[in-house]
């Protein structure tokens, strides 16, 4: 019995939310606060609103081309040659991001949590986990996201909710920050935009929705759920630690996790559990990148050898991950790619929308 390979709207929303919550949840509050100071929550909101516009653009394109992926309609709108060129670029960026995010993950593990774990193993293990997934089945991808989502959310809430008792409201004030310039404020917003910009996965999943025309509501919900947790995290971290203290920490969320005490002394520290759930979060995010890459490459070459592609991608991503010298190097690369890709996505999506309007291209219905 062949199961229909389709994704429900709830799964669709969860794919987006699960992709947004990734590697960065450990260090994100510090990044934003580094740039925007006390205005971090406000900058986050601004960043999210700008991302939201990009999301709407993507959803609009998805609705207009209900049975084509990002790759597919780029080709339709821009023509085969130019569309393919841009898409190859896009997929290369995705591959580089896989490598860099994996490296970031491995660095976090080695630096803060599991100093004895060899970095090569962490990188390889994470990439291996992604590459053995059966990408020929979009529903399996959706099931995986669906299954892990509660395992990511619940530990996050267990860490965040008890922190309410440690909140000092003066840490949050003034919400516009201490005399920060607009550039600083906006670079804080861009950090958030980069962190949540992986909602791009939706453009690869829309054609597999049960009803692709109804992608807008679940898409927005998924985005809102994901960004809500990001905002929540940034705000709580700032409110608990304050600007000065947080800049001294590398992984502020982990410090929050260490502050949680479990009654009954089953484990001395809850952070082991939190690390495992964070590994789940990293895995689902990387899986989404991997999904974009593997399905994208397969679509450009119009083949169905997903397994082959994912195993070829594994060593390449592995070497990309080993390329930066240290964590600071990783972040300097990531910053470039994040900012670049955010700009690219943004400009490109609206470019596509305009061209689609002008050339009157529309996806076939059915």
């Amino acid at each position, binding site marked *: *019995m*062949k*199961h229909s390979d389709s994704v*429900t709207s*709830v*799964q669709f929303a969860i794919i987006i939310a699960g992709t947004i919550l990734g590697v960065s949840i450990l260090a994100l509050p510090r990044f934003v606060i580094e740039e925007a100071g006390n205005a971090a929550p406000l900058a986050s909101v601004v960043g999210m609103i700008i991302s939201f516009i990009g999301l709407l653009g993507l959803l609009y394109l998805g609705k207009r081309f209900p049975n084509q992926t990002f790759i597919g309609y780029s080709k339709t709108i821009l023509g085969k040659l130019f569309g393919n060129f841009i898409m190859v670029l896009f997929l290369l960026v995705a591959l580089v991001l896989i490598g860099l995010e994996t490296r970031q993950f491995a660095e976090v*593990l080695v630096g803060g*949590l*599991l100093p*004895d*774990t*060899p970095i090569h*193993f*962490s990188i390889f*293990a*994470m990439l*291996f*986990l992604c590459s*053995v*997934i*059966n990408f020929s*089945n979009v*529903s*399996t991808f*959706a*099931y*995986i996201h*669906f*299954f*892990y989502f509660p395992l990511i959310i619940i530990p996050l809430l267990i860490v965040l909710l008890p922190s309410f008792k440690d909140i000092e409201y003066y840490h949050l004030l003034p919400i516009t920050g201490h005399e920060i310039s607009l550039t600083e404020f906006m670079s804080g917003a861009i950090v958030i935009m980069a962190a949540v910009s992986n909602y791009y996965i939706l453009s690869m999943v829309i054609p597999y929705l049960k009803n692709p025309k109804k992608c807008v509501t679940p898409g927005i919900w998924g985005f809102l759920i994901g960004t809500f947790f990001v905002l929540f995290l940034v705000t709580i971290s700032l409110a608990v630690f304050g600007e000065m203290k947080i800049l001294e920490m590398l992984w502020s969320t982990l410090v929050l996790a260490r502050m949680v005490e479990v009654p009954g*002394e*089953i*484990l*001395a*520290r809850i952070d*082991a559990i939190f*690390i*495992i759930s964070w*590994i*789940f979060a990293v*895995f689902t995010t990387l899986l989404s990148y991997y999904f974009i890459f593997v399905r994208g490459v397969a679509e450009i070459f119009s083949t169905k*050898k997903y397994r082959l592609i994912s195993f070829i991608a594994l060593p390449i991503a592995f070497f990309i991950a080993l390329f930066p010298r240290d964590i600071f190097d990783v972040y300097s690369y990531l910053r470039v790619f994040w900012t670049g890709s955010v700009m690219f996505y943004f400009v490109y999506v609206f470019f596509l929308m305009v061209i689609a309007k002008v050339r009157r291209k529309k996806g076939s219905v059915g």
Partner: protein
Amino acid sequence: MSPFFRKRTKSEQPKQTIPKSEIMIENEDKRITSNLKSNIEHFHKIFKNDMDFLIREFHVGGKSAALLCLTSLVEREEVERDIIQPLQEQTNLNMTIISSIPTILEKDILYHADVQKEKNLSTLIQSITLGKVIVLLEGVEEAILFDAIRQEKRAIDQPETERVVRGPKDGFIEQISTNVALLRYRLPVPEFRIEKTEVGTRTRTKVAVCFLEDIANDTLLKEVKTRIDAIQIDGVLDAGYIEQFIQDNPWSPFPQIQNTERPDKVVGNLLEGRVAILVEGSPFALIAPATFNQFYQTSEDYYDRWLITSAIRTIRILALIFSLTFSSFYVTVLSFHPELIPSGFVVAASSGRHGVPFPVFVEVLLMEIAMEILREATIRMPQQVGGALSIVGVLVVGQAAVQAGFVSPITVVIIALSTIGSFATPSYNAATSFRMLRFPLIILAGTFGLLGLAVGIVLILNHMIGLRSFGVPFMSPISPGDASSNKDSIIRAPLNWLKARPKEINPKNKKRVGGRVKDKAEHNFLSKDGGKPDET
């Protein structure tokens, strides 16, 4: 694409068939002759001097006749009373029209219920081996076949592998006819279908596909039948053969088809829209498709009250998770992350390990292997020496090893917990696969610490999420989530909440429970005002 990677199309794939029996091919188109002597000779040539091969010659109304059968397979008394006696008693039979003799015998003389006429030799040879009796007559080119099979049966008793405290105590036995009867009497409806096929060129094992035709999904049914028909093997000795041939992923450690000895469980699953497969000679029925959920549920869950059952199911899940991860978590915490140990335990954990010659990883791995050896020994061993084994197991492996400083007491506790956890899983084969998966997890945890453990768990989970049994996701209804089916997964909601059959199986007929009894009950005797409003 290079031809190296090219996939063979279906027609290019070499067709493999098993050679047929030579005797059968030889007699494929042959018919029996009118000469009784040569007919008997022919059968004698095939069965030679087999111990149980019987040729009984006698006269029917003055004509010679012969009865052939394998005595080990037929009911002797039945043959004597219903076949030989009425035939021999006929002294004045009208034997003028030879061709009508078999019909006369069948219609007027024989008492036996199951009588057939047959001319083809290969069919007759086959029938003898299947426990039928044939009667040959001089001058008649047709044989009469009687089904007088007698099977050695054991009594129906409580299934050894699936005991219940509350619920029916009968279990399947080896004979398929008895098993079918056990199902039939629980499902006295005309929609209950039992379709028979044969698998195994030599054993010719009867395989019955059972389903409720107005509930079971047609695509599922067709898939099950196609897969069974495609099996090519010489012998099927147990339902396990069928299971391995028709499962979706032979590389998976998890069973994708459920087996059970309990008729009530089979009927419960048929009512949910699943398909059951009975195999002659096996006391286990197969149920497809199977989801992970079914492996920690028992039929008893539905007989007891829901609140208690739900609690017990939760405990079983916990036990399953324990059995899989407890020992590996212990290894990783003790060897890589001692900071996770609560301060109260540090002394206990480290003082117990004083003098233990191995690292925790090796210690746990050795103990787990010892535990598996003990378990395996307990199953294989004759029952008379069981006492000796438990003494060896408990005293030597437990007490003495600790006293000798070979293992730490805490390790023994951990191993015991994880082993007992796996025994709490109702399904033996699922529990075994989880126990075996413990070993790679311990190795991962012992070499790469917490990350290794997490990676191992994610690998197992991803495999389970991606696995499908006859197209049904293995982890459903947890992933992909379905609210109505989740009422009967980790918890078992009250029966009147389970209004729909499980959605993931896609049954034709969806509704199974009506309204609440409470709404219809007229009296509420226990309430203070006696239920009905008091008139006085």
